[in-house]
């Protein structure tokens, strides 16, 4: 019996050891990156490039290759003709024929799942030849681990004029952010100008009813909210609990920070030209003081720190808030729901200014979704060429299809960075009776439709809430940003990671979050801020600031 038992145990242990041994060996062979496609010998490719034709941004590859791709889908209405799918449609057909490639979508999924799948693919080094990432940190990781190709030369040689133009619409900020160590490793969607800038949205009908003027400064807002609390039964400006990925702990109230020239959560230049972390600057203390006051006075929702986004929407949609902070596109969200519940509401957006009449807006990251090429793929310029075709769609739409950009082969949106502004200007022109507008055909259609809907009046829009969002956003939401020639955009100067950040950033963020919330809620006095700055510097903040400045001066 004893022998039998040890016999079994021994066998099991052997199997486990064997498996472990085999797996380690196996991991050498099969766990490493598998080459994408058989590549011709060096001699062949050398001779091919000797007689290479001029570098044609739209021309086919010298030989037919299979390229593996992954696809994330938005799930909206694609407008695809019958029989076509996300991965098999006129766009993909065009790419295959024109560029002489065979597209193989190894996996496809919806956008939310895409994030998780691509992270797993990156971690297990099981990558398609061309793919995209939504997270800038993933992009940096890929570069650090040597998993993607350098595209500097390919972009320089093969990008079309239109592609170059689009990447110039933000002053080159996008490309600069994508360039690491002097090399370009990916091509991305551009961050839309003004998209994240927060405005104060206010119930104009209530203002008129009570007899208050439209807000210019934070003081005006305070008066308005106090009046709303008293007369309309609201409970202050709503906010949400810090989301773990929010830029700064009191993101919901960024308007107040901006009105004090404060830029928490961002790296910004100070008067001497050095880059500092906005959260430890004196302006931030000033803004926190105001927020603390407002919270005490009930001008800020008492429960903001425990409110999740669905409750936040509920307060606005329910008429329990007359003022909230949101970007220009708040017409879509949350106001579409709000208007359905209260069709008589009139919402307007205002840029909040400081005492000298200047409004500041925090701009977002210059890059969105980033497309990259797996290391070892023979023709990195393929990505550039595909993007050339795709960006061309807007000027010369492909015949026979009306499908949305989500159906493209590499579905990153390649709009001009200032597209929102273009829309605003064109729509204003149409509303003023000037039908001579310029732009891409698809955009012009939307603009005409929006202008048409807007002319039907706010009552009509309230009854047709599907159209409400776009009209209100593009006319009222965008106005304070474009018309206001005193709007100063503030940009984050640094997007990477320094060595000390890898060790200490998590802790510093927590420190910041705790400090800001304690002060805002009145659990600490305002002077606690100085204590926080000291701790922040001591726990690595000072070192990191030096590292960031060093990194930027290269």
């Amino acid at each position, binding site marked *: 019996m004893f022998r*039998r038992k040890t016999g*079994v145990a021994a066998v*099991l242990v052997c*199997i*486990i050891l064997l*498996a*472990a041994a085999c*797996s*380690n060996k196996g*991991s*050498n062979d099969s*766990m*490493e*990156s598998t080459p994408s496609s058989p590549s011709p010998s060096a001699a062949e490719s050398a001779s091919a490039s000797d007689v290479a034709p001029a570098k044609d941004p739209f021309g086919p590859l010298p030989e037919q290759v299979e390229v593996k791709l992954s696809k994330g889908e938005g799930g909206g209405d694609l407008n695809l003709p019958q029989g076509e799918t996300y991965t098999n449609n006129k766009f993909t057909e065009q790419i295959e024929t024109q560029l002489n490639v065979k597209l193989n979508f190894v996996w496809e999924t919806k956008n939310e799942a895409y994030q998780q799948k691509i*992270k797993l693919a*990156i*971690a*297990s*080094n099981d990558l398609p030849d061309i793919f995209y990432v939504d997270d800038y*940190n*993933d992009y940096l*990781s890929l570069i650090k*681990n*040597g*998993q993607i190709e350098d595209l500097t030369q390919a972009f320089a040689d093969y990008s079309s004029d239109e592609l170059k133009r689009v990447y110039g619409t933000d002053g080159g900020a996008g490309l600069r952010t994508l360039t690491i160590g002097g090399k370009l490793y990916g091509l991305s969607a551009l961050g839309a100008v003004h998209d994240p800038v927060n405005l104060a949205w206010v119930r104009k009908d209530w203002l008129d009813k009570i007899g208050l003027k439209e807000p210019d400064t934070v003081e005006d807002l305070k008066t308005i909210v106090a009046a709303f609390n008293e007369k309309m039964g609201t409970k202050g400006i709503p906010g949400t*609990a*810090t989301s*773990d*990925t929010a830029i700064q*702990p009191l993101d919901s109230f960024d308007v107040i920070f901006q009105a004090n020239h404060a830029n928490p959560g961002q790296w910004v230049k100070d008067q001497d030209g050095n880059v500092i972390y906005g959260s430890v600057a004196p302006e931030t203390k000033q803004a926190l003081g105001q927020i603390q006051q407002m919270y005490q006075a009930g001008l800020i929702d*008492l*429960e903001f*720190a*425990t409110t*999740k986004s*669905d*409750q936040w929407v509920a307060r606005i949609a329910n008429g329990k808030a007359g003022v909230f902070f949101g970007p220009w596109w708040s017409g879509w969200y949350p106001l579409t729901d709000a208007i359905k519940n209260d069709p008589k509401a009139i919402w307007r957006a205002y840029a909040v200014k400081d005492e000298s009449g200047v409004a500041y807006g925090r701009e977002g990251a210059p890059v969105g979704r980033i497309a990259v090429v797996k*290391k070892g793929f023979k023709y990195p310029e393929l990505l550039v060429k595909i993007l050339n075709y795709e960006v061309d769609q807007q000027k010369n739409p492909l015949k026979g299809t009306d499908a949305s950009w989500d159906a493209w082969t590499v579905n990153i949106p390649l709009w001009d960075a200032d597209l929102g502004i273009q829309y605003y200007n064109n729509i204003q022109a149409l509303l003023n009776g000037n039908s001579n507008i310029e732009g891409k055909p698809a955009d012009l259609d939307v603009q005409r439709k929006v202008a048409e809907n807007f002319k039907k009046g706010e009552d009509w829009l309230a009854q047709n809430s599907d159209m409400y969002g776009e009209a209100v956003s593009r006319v009222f939401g965008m106005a304070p940003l474009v018309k206001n020639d005193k709007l100063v955009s503030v940009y984050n100067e640094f997007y990477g*990671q320094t060595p000390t950040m*890898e*060790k200490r*950033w*998590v*802790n510093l*963020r*927590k420190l910041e*979050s*705790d400090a800001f*919330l304690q002060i805002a*809620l009145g659990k600490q006095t305002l002077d606690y801020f100085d204590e926080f700055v000291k701790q922040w510097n001591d726990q690595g903040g000072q070192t990191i600031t030096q590292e960031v400045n060093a990194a930027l001066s290269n």
Partner: protein
Amino acid sequence: MKPGFHYHLMLIPGIILLLMFSVYPMFGIVMAFQDYNPTKGFSGSPWVGWENFTYMFELPDSYLIFKNTVYLAVSKIMANLLLSLIFALLLNEIKHKLLKRSIQTVVYFPHFVSWVLFGGIIAQIFSLDGVVNVILQMLGQQPIQFMASNYWFPALLVGSDVWKEFGFSTIIFLAALTGINPALYEAAGIDGANRLRMMWHVTLPGIRTTVILIAVLSLQNVMNAGFEQILNLYNPLVYHSSDIIDTYVYRIGLLQSQYELGTAVGLLKSVVSILLIVISYKMAVKFANYRIF
């Protein structure tokens, strides 16, 4: 053929599957000791020894996080066990078959609601203008911000978890209750015992082994204090009492890719779990002369 041979035969398919899908991937545990680089893989990434573990222990609040994890997990395990046991015992008393089955079915349903939605319901009920505070005010009390209080929030977590999951263990106990010999009840009845005494002398001993088993098996979750629930319910004001290992690691993961940390944490959890289970097993053998497994 001796029966032993057949026993081995019966186990073989399962063992093979476990070897393939559970044991074989365990090679990945080495990541906890590496500075992992996907292109170099498991065999090529540099070895860093205990560095990932020291990083974990050196995180500020690492003690607090461990404490929260264990406290919340143990509270939930005990509360769940107690409530589902009592509920099963009470339900067992019901004679009316249809009623019994309906109740049994219905209490399992909350298990199917995702924490995303269930969390929203809890947040609503305990908000300043939610049901609980309305009742409090009717009773003349001041409203309480439950979701912001480090005092109340853990109770909220345990309570809502029990509410959602007690149906699961109830099913197991009900099944175990059917295994008690009805003759024992008859005998006790003849001896003059009422229902309560019967419960104490017949029912509880009858399902003792199952209760102990469930309790011990729950030990494997002592380090998993309910990530999804807490992620959906917590907010920065209550990190102090509700931040657990998994939520902390998750927030780190959002700021930077940290495969190694996740693996190191997982390894730590596994080691703790197996220690606890072995200890309980040995204690049961020693003090109750009973082998749990």
